[in-house]
């Protein structure tokens, strides 16, 4: 009967080890919970001094509830039942007639942490691999196994709200500081510490009274008021209800029953469905990044501009030895400073920072080429210099080295002309800022070999980014879909619609940043050059306003002025309110151009299926995750409706709204990345 849990006795302690069958990480399915319940029932009647709960997986304690099981639940009542099952098991664990202790290593997330919260004590392994948190909110839900009830008394109300609202994970040390765990010890002392706690008779930990002050009834409403603006900045209540539910539950000191009921509603909501879709797409891309070995130790990056430096810094951060080449020591000096600042803020421990800095070699002469396993070119976006560089690189590198370009639009075939062996050239198209945007487009040129693509994907996976296969064609996937949307925004500016109106329309739709501000942030010169690159092949007009601003050296945030003005620290200044001409369908115009282009990409086979478009746009641009990506959005609106709207806009605004011929081919909407059969 024991498929997932293994019960042993050591002295007068019970040791329950979770090792979920057929999975590399422990997840809490109904099956696992039911089995746990049976074990607990058996233990209840025994005369024991304590129980130790631990994981038999090297990957960690418990990674949470089984997200794959979520998509099979369509009825809120069923979802509530699932939460109640978890709550009952946790209550049984808490109610054991003897103390219990969770021994935690690696991931301890979501339902896994809630299970640990039901134990009397928690001991965590003191190493960087240990991460604890309640990330449910990222899937559009909130804790459902009584986490909202048990967490505040343990760590205090503000810390508990912070954990649940942001979904961020804590290191072992942070968890110890908050009181989330009772003790952190190295691997060698884990069991001894657990036994010591069981014998100690210490009462269950409680947050000190002052950390519980915010929960004092007269204060609660005020606390919620104070927190609301912060939550609103991250999560629009119409788009993301979960954080607001968390605040409600906390304000009302809700019971477990209400928690379960609320979870049931959220779990089957459109937002949660879409966020789970996006999450599973990310997992699918991660798997592609792990499908094969990359055999890469040393990465050589040429070009220490913003992208080159950020790629090099990120790769060194993720453990690769990196050399960063550029012509001028001034540029490299800037990159070294940036690297140091980044490592310091991310890694903190001085020795670990030093290790990262030692892996990061500024390289004026290009010494690193000699032993590089991967060379990434990130120089100016011009074919000539790129070809010249690759000609030089090919002479110096080892024959097995993989060559990559970070071009954002130049066809690989053209760059590859300079190479004797163009089959080893791939595109590794990163997005700015590299540390935030998870997507990397893996660009396949006509002559790129399968082996090169595989290694590129594996490298991308190894630096914890998501590899997405795209065909080498103008703008690849993400920039191409984004460009008509940005240019439409410029058109709207030309027509006299206020900047704020345009940007607000987009953010209210669910974009992380309005298109005008986005253009300013990317840099108008870069926008212009990409737009010009795409204008020919895609028959796009480049608005005069863009040329005009670039001509005046108003390049956006970096030059202090673009469409908006920025202060010395790069903060946007609010423009004076203007007369607003609002009978223009701003959102519709912006979004439909984007959707139309997404359809064109599918039809041309830039990517193989609709899932890839969703993954690319959400992870590469932050496209409204609660909508699940452009294709999921199309699915929810219905193709016919969109075609009608496009026709209407075509009549009114001209041929740029000409519906793509792909709209009449429903087979293009097939899903590919995720196993089919979801609701």
């Amino acid at each position, binding site marked *: 009967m024991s498929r997932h849990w293994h019960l042993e006795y050591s002295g007068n302690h019970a040791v329950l080890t979770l090792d979920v069958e057929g999975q590399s990480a422990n997840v809490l399915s109904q099956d696992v919970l039911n089995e746990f319940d049976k074990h607990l029932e058996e233990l209840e009647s025994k005369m024991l001094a304590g129980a130790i709960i631990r994981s038999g997986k090297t990957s960690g304690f418990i990674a949470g509830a089984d997200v794959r099981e979520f998509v099979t639940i369509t009825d809120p009542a069923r979802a509530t039942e699932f939460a109640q099952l978890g709550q009952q098991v946790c209550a049984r664990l808490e109610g054991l007639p003897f103390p219990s202790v969770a021994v935690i290593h690696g991931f301890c997330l979501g339902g896994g942490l809630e299970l640990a919260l039901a134990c009397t004590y928690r001991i965590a392994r003191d190493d960087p691999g240990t991460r604890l948190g309640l990330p449910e909110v990222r899937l559009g839900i909130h804790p459902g196994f009584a986490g909202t009830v048990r967490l505040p008394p343990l760590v205090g109300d503000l810390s508990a709200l912070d954990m649940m609202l942001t979904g961020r994970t804590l290191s072992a040390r942070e968890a110890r500081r908050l009181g989330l765990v009772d003790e952190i010890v190295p691997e060698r002392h884990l069991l001894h510490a657990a036994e010591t706690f069981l014998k100690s008779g210490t009462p269950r930990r409680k947050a000190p009274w002052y950390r519980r002050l915010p929960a004092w009834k007269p204060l609660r409403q005020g606390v919620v008021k104070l927190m609301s603006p912060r939550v609103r900045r991250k999560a629009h209540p119409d788009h993301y209800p979960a954080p607001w539910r968390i605040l409600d539950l906390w304000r009302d000191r809700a019971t477990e029953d209400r928690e379960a009921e609320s979870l049931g509603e959220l779990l089957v909501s459109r937002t949660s469905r879409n966020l789970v879709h996006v999450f599973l797409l990310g997992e699918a891309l991660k798997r592609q990044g792990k499908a094969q070995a990359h055999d890469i130790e040393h990465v050589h990056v040429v070009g220490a501009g913003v992208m080159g430096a950020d790629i090099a810094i990120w790769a060194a951060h993720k453990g690769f030895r990196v*050399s960063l080449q550029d012509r001028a*020591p001034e540029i490299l*000096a800037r990159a*070294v*400073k940036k690297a140091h600042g980044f490592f310091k803020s991310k890694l903190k421990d001085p020795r670990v920072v030093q290790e990262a*800095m*030692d892996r990061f070699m500024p390289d004026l002469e290009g*010494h690193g080429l000699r*032993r590089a396993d991967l060379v990434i070119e990130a120089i100016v976006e011009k074919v000539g210099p790129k070809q010249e560089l690759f000609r030089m690189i090919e002479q110096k590198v080892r024959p097995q080295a993989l060559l990559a370009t970070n071009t954002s639009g130049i066809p690989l075939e053209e760059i590859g002309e300079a190479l004797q062996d163009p089959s080893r050239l791939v595109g590794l198209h990163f997005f700015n800022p590299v540390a935030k945007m998870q997507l990397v487009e893996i660009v396949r040129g006509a002559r790129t070999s399968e082996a090169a693509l595989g290694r590129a994907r594996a490298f991308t996976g190894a630096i914890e980014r998501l590899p997405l296969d795209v065909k080498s064609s103008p703008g690849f996937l993400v920039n191409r879909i984004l460009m008509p949307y940005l240019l439409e925004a410029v058109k709207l500016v030309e027509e006299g619609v206020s900047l704020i109106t345009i940007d607000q329309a987009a953010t209210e739709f669910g974009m992380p940043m309005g298109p005008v501000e986005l253009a300013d942030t990317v840099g108008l010169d870069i926008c212009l050059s990409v737009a010009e690159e795409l204008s020919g092949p895609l028959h796009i007009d480049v608005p005069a306003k863009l040329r005009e601003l670039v001509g005046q050296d108003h390049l956006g945030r970096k030059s202090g002025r673009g469409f908006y003005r920025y202060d010395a620290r790069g903060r946007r200044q609010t423009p004076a309110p203007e007369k607003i001409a609002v009978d223009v369908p701003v959102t519709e115009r912006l979004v439909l151009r984007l959707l139309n282009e997404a359809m064109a990409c599918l039809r041309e086979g830039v990517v193989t299926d609709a899932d890839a478009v969703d993954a690319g746009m959400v992870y590469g641009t932050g496209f409204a995750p609660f909508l699940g990506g452009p294709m999921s959005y199309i699915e929810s609106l219905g193709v016919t409706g969109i075609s009608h709207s496009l026709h209407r806009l075509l009549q009114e605004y001209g041929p740029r709204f000409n519906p793509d011929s792909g709209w009449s081919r429903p087979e293009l909407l097939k899903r590919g990345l995720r196993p089919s059969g979801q609701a």
Partner: protein
Amino acid sequence: MNKVYIVDGARTPFLKARAEPGPFSASDLAVACARPVLARQPFPASALDEVIVGCVTPAADEANIARIIALRLGCGKRVPAHTVQRNCASGLQAVATAAERIALGRAQLVLAGGTEAMSRAPIQWNTAMAGWLGKLLRARGPLDRIQALARFRPSLLKPVYSLLLGLTDPLVKLSMGQTAEILAHRFNITRETQDVYALNSHRRLAAAFDAGGMNAEVETLYDVNERFYTEDTGLRRDTDLEQLAKLRPVFDRQYGLVTSGNSSQVTDGAGMLLLASEAAVKRHGLSVLGEWVDHEWAGVDPSQMGLGPVHAVAQLLARQKMKMRDLQQLELNEAFAAQVLACQAAWDSAQYARAELGLDTPPGAMDPERLNPEGGAIANGHPVGASGARLVLHLLHALKRRGGGQGIATLCIGGGQGGAMLLRTEGNK
């Protein structure tokens, strides 16, 4: 004996020590210059058999600094490393030890060199202070503690500058500068000749940098505050005899001749070399900078430690049955202008040869044009542990540029020693 080759190497720019600790630790410096050297080899860092580093005063958290450097360079846990110390010749000692290990057939690939962050030399509590602290810590009970506290005296706060101690001979209690004053007196070397020599050192180094002659050996160094260094920061392109003449003596303050202008500079820096056996050169297809031939150590009077090279070079030449004129170039560390000039005078002196070297005829001074032709420590500084490695590295590059031949790198060593290494190289084709 197996042949020993020096395959490659690099040094950092030498950074003149200002009042406060410099931006790099000794291991930072060694890593910064060894990293590109290893990056451009066809074999991985883990293929090294050993790492040997000379360092006179590693920081308190840099015990066995060679091992720290090896691990930071990514050599991996299996590459052993040890640190050597022979004062000013520590870097030369590291190369010598590496060469001997390879010559004996005990190693194939060795990374060797020297590093020093003189600006970070620790300032310590004196022994009395340590005693007081110890008693305080051992005191039990409040009364005991008050009594222990009461034994405090302001004099306990007097710090010990390890840098100054290191530059003073512990037995004869003379500062290194004073030993140079003794040589100036003994060989009758005037203030002006010293200053002329010093000025020349700066001019030669400046010319070498301007002509791009240092590019092959000096690696640009980056700190974390967006600064970078491509040249030795002690190099004074603007100095002249008039300015040098204005400087006051620093060691014998009243009547002395040795000034900060005609002495080597207190600096931070590192130099690292890669040595290989003939088999390793063949196996990895390495191109070679030059060949190690032999080296020699000699002892002299600690109060005249600057004469160490006179003996070491004479003994080395005698063993190799060579004359001074057989050398294309001599790299003699410029601890002090007076000391370099004294060595030249001693090599020329028949009386010195008979009385001190036991030779009938003096070996003769080195042609001044072929002595430190790109300047020396007066212009670029003397990070004590690193200088020996710098001399070897520079000698090989310079010899190669000039068409090849044989040369000696030599240093005087605080405590009364001299070290000299004979190297040979083919010219650039």
